[in-house]
């Protein structure tokens, strides 16, 4: 999440969208781009084909329920989704998304967003503007204790920095 403001079109999904439809097991052995090309195809065959860099996934409750597979979160990253807003998340999906530096924000009334609405998000301030309907909405920002990690761009760059700064002890290879 290096560039702060995210702008893109909304892709709207319902409640309890699970990890297995985000990253189907039958493509587990394929490379990540192949896997991502099947992301959510069981519920919206156009999504992976037509989503544009920066677009925003808007979803209902318990988004990402199910498996620990990081490919579920990584598929959105691979498709260059700018951010996810959902009413709530399954815990492993939530942790995976943030660890990949993919902003996952919580917003209570996603019904105010329609497919293809143009959205503008400031994930640090927790602000969302629906440019299509001109509505301003508050979303809950990234939790404070994860801010450092998110602003480094995710867990890997964050670890790199900590290791280089000598802040964490590691075994050398």
């Amino acid at each position, binding site marked *: 999440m290096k560039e702060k403001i995210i702008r893109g079109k909304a892709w709207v999904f319902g409640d309890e969208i699970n990890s*297995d439809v985000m990253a189907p097991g*039958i493509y587990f052995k394929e490379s990540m781009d192949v896997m991502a090309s099947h992301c959510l195809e*069981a*519920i919206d065959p156009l999504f992976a084909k037509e989503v544009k860099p920066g677009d925003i996934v808007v979803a209902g409750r*318990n988004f990402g329920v199910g*498996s*620990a597979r990081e490919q579920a979160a990584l598929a959105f990253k691979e498709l260059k989704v700018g951010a996810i807003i959902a009413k709530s998340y*399954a815990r492993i999906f939530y942790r995976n998304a943030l660890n990949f530096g993919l902003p996952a924000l919580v917003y209570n009334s996603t019904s105010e967003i329609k497919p293809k609405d143009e959205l503008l998000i400031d994930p640090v301030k927790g602000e969302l503007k629906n440019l299509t309907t001109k509505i301003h909405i508050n979303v809950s920002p990234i939790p404070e204790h994860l801010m450092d990690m998110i602003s480094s761009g995710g*867990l890997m760059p964050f670890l790199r920095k900590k290791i280089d700064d000598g802040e964490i002890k590691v075994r050398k290879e």
Partner: protein
Amino acid sequence: MSQTLIQKILSRASGKSEVKVGEIVTCDVDIAMILDSGGPRKIWPRLKNLGVGVFDPEKVIVVADHFVPAADPQSAAILKLTRDFVKNYNIKHFYDMEGICHVIMAENGHLQPGLFCCGGDSHSTMGGAFGCYMAGFGAIEMTGVVVTGKIWSVVMDTIKVNWEGSFSRGVTAKDIMLFLAKKLGMENAFKAVEFGGSTVKNMSMQERMVLTNMAAELGAETGLIAPDKTTLEAIRLAGVEPQTNALSWKSDDDASFCETHNFNAENLLPQVAAPHKPSNSASAEQFEQENIKIDQAYIGACVGGKLNDLHMVARVLKGKSVSPKTRLLVAPSSKKIMAQAASDGTLEIITNAGGIILPSGCGACAGLGAGVIAEKEVCISSTNRNFQGRMGSKDSFVYLASPYTVAASAVAGKIIDPRELI
């Protein structure tokens, strides 16, 4: 301050005398379990990139279970990479084709009350049957754990679920969980579920592990059961001496839970969950009336291919045969279970009835190995999750049930209440 079991574990792991619900803590990880599917193949390139090794080769446990045995060159390459990783980092505990990870952890005495364990698989919650914290994380987060030996956690509230009384005929721990998925819903993130009551006390470890395994279906951080005599016996059976303070790992009598639910096991009927969610459950009796024909019956997975599960299958199948209109596939959860079931005659009963034995591993449970289903096919399965497309084609249908119900349905060729056949 009185504390719940999970608070006590998180206090110890974070080096504090006590912790409050909602607090963020950094915990020392006692065991990091990683698998062929999201383990070395994801983590090794990241370690190379960082130029670091694993935090402790004795505390990182590797299990090859998802892609075993290799059915194509890609799976073979993933397994080879997993083996190379183990050699390269001198990993002490490597279980190669020995069985499904969560069962392997229990079989080999890795789980002890009070431990803080992370696993690269969502059903890692199964470990909580031993009174420890064990939860699932994605490979990216497991990379952090494997490098630093630490992880952050929110101190979670506990939902206490009590079951009293004994099961009626044909009802099992699996039925409890399918019932609870509907009752408590699948959205209990960042909460622990602690199971108690006389029903749970009287369960074997294999049954208790079904409860904690499927705490994942409740969306919980983990499931836990306070240790008792049965727990200690299971640890000894695995060849390890329990820690002297093992039985002290329990919630204080006056600990506060965010929710408490009390249920009576005597009233529970065999359950079935319809596609595509474990929470779509109702009594098998009701499904029987819908006359649902099945193309396949599947016994397997961490949750549903243990020795007692195979015994349930044999009890139903003894002297009967699988309907010619369907097929029954049975994948024992581990090599050891396979051997036990072979020597006690269970496999013979299953194969005489027309069942097909598959290798131990995750197999069709997550659509990775033998036994996946085609478009429009219907399967009834003793696995834990029936999300759309999980077992093969995205246009197939999976019903979840206990081993009794799966075996009885295999005999009938359609979904039935198992009580007629046992």
